[in-house]
């Protein structure tokens, strides 16, 4: 019996520290740390508890939606309707809770979350059954939802007073409840994508949909599920935002999709699908939130804010592309090495 020869590859048995530092999330985490340290020196109020919780509260709305958006983008899709779902669910939450309808708060919670899930289901079904690109489907859905919101509100804010407002405006000690909700959602999302087979299968779909289908993964069902999860999380965010203000109007949620996608991309999720983590998206949301906070604390002109955020997104994507290219280069070198070793062994066998 021939001895089995092992060929050592660069990627085998990498030290833990290298495995951690080799991820895109690590580089984003380092960027976040640098930003926090820099802001601590630049502004004396940045690291005060008040400001920290303010920033976390602001991050919470994008962070919650970013969990869902991560799943969609990892599976190879996109959802441009998230902001509009936030708007319509916030307005319906306010409407159902207002004196006009006066539904009990548990019923409002269930109905509004179900509304979000239904919108996601419609998105998912159109994308999977009719095979229309998600960009178009969700863009169109957003426009429809925007119109429905205006029909409901007639351009006026809807005020309400309900226990549901605690989700957005309540505190446990000094910690906003919205922040706690965000962390619960992020932990749940991380566990789903790392420990549960269904969550892992989303990566397979994003990597190679055909291969995933052939290996028995229910691709359409899973893709649909990502849209349902995202829109449900948008509904949760809508309740939080409405609760924070004690009212909702048609302008709520406008342009959220831009910031959420930016957060997800900065956090290391690849737009091509198949890569990224939920907790990376949280880091991306944190970077966006701290940048916006920094603009006000440092008195940066509003004209520069969009420019800076745009540059941050481009740099994050460029760094990720560089890291991906480096990883691909290593893979190609390994493959070449395997081929060379295999050819050498075959030649030795022939000579024997």
């Amino acid at each position, binding site marked *: 019996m021939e001895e089995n020869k092992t060929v050592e590859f660069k990627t085998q048995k990498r030290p833990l520290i290298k495995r951690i530092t080799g991820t895109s999330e690590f580089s984003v985490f380092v960027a976040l740390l640098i930003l926090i340290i820099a802001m601590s020196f630049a502004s004396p109020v940045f690291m005060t508890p008040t400001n920290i919780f303010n920033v976390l509260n602001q991050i919470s709305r994008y962070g919650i939606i970013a969990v869902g958006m991560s799943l969609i983008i990892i599976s190879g899709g996109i959802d441009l309707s998230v902001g509009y779902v936030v708007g319509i669910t916030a307005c319906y939450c306010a409407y159902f809770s207002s004196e006009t309808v006066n539904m009990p708060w548990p019923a409002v919670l269930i109905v509004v979350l179900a509304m979000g899930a239904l919108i996601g289901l419609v998105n998912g079904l159109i994308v999977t059954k009719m095979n229309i690109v998600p960009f178009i489907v969700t863009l169109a859905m957003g426009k429809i939802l925007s119109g429905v919101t205006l029909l409901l509100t007639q351009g006026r804010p809807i005020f309400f007073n309900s226990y549901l407002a605690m989700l957005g405006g309540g505190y446990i000690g000094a910690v906003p409840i919205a922040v706690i909700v965000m962390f619960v959602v992020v932990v749940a999302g991380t566990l789903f994508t790392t420990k549960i087979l269904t969550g892992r299968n989303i990566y397979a779909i994003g990597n190679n949909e055909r291969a995933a289908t052939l290996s028995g993964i229910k691709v359409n069902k899973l893709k649909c599920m990502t849209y349902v999860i995202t829109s449900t999380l948008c509904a949760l965010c809508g309740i939080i935002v409405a609760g924070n203000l004690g009212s909702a109007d048609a302008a709520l949620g406008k342009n959220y999709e831009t910031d959420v996608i930016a957060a997800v991309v900065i956090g290391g999720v690849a737009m091509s699908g198949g890569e990224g983590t939920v907790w990376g998206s949280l880091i991306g949301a944190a970077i966006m939130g701290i940048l916006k*906070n920094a603009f006000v604390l440092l008195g940066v002109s509003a004209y520069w804010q969009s420019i800076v955020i745009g540059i941050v997104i481009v740099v994050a994507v460029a760094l990720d592309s560089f890291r991906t290219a480096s990883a691909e280069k290593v893979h190609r070198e390994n493959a070449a090495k395997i081929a060379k070793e295999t050819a050498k062994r075959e030649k030795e066998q022939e000579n024997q």
Partner: protein
Amino acid sequence: MKKLFSLLLTLVMVMGCLSGCSSTPPTSGEQQEPDEAVNETVDEAADESADKAEDTNAADKAAEPAALSSDLQEIYDKLTHKPVENDTGKEFKIAVLCVMNNSFWYDVVDGIEEITKLMADQAYNCKVEMVTIEAHDGQLFAEAIDNCVTMQYDAICTVGTSEAIIPAVDRATAAGIPVYTFNSDVKESTRVSFTGQDLYAAGVKAGETIVDLIDGKGKVAIITGYFTVPAHEDRRLGAMEVFDKYDEIEIVGEVENHDSNDEGYTYTKDFITANPDLSAIYITAGGQQGVTKALDELNIKGEVKVVMFDFMDEVIDALYDGSIQATIGQDPYAQGANPVCLAYNQLVTGKPEIEGNDFTNLDVVTPDNVAEYFPR
């Protein structure tokens, strides 16, 4: 199935292109009782600065038409400009382009709807159609104006939302369709007249009010709606002209909240976190409720002086509970009704009644006089 859906979508888009401006006015939700506010101008400095081309024909013809019903008579009596009787034998068609992104516009729409009812009377024989635009987007307004020209409206009344609409306004004027602006103006265009607040003067007034409230010293934060909307910019720059005269006033930030309560709330909290000794916040446009909510949460009602615009319910509530120290009105009802009336009069008489500016009242309401304006 996919091909069929794509074909249906294409058909819908083509039909949408062909429909143009011919949308029916939106049905209102709760109808607001028109405020019976005192229309005396408090600030004598806000004088009209433009030339008025007085049309003697229009003055002669502005007699009350015979036999208006009681509700139409009520509307007629409220108007600051009176419509002349239509003896041309022609039915006129006027388009009104309006944005509805916050509750301020409800009162503007109230004015538009009432003048629409009045104009429909046989004495005037004029059809007024409102087109709602979803946002302060110059491109959307420009396209709507071009569509209205295609639809052969006799006159167009529009929010002068941004300089981007100037070419479209000029095209309409060149096509023989007079254009009237309201709420926000595009002075460089060929529009006939502008109905609205003397925006720069309103900004100056707001600045002076803040200076009085903070004794000429302290930190001030400015939250504007959009940097690209002329009305918001004029109010901001008018106030800045006042602040620049005081060395002890420091502007700690100028941000745009896109008329959003959510963004107004976030920015207010950040400003106060960054500047615990903040003296005043000046809001030039929408999002007022978000600002007052943030101040309420931080329990500093009254400590930070707040000056804003308009008389929506939530603003009046804030005046009564001391969350804000002053709000400046701009008569949204007149902004809705006046341009239509002026456009109609030009169509009938052939000459514009007013060229330039038709400034509305600049009422300043404070907690001291709020009960006179809005008794409860």
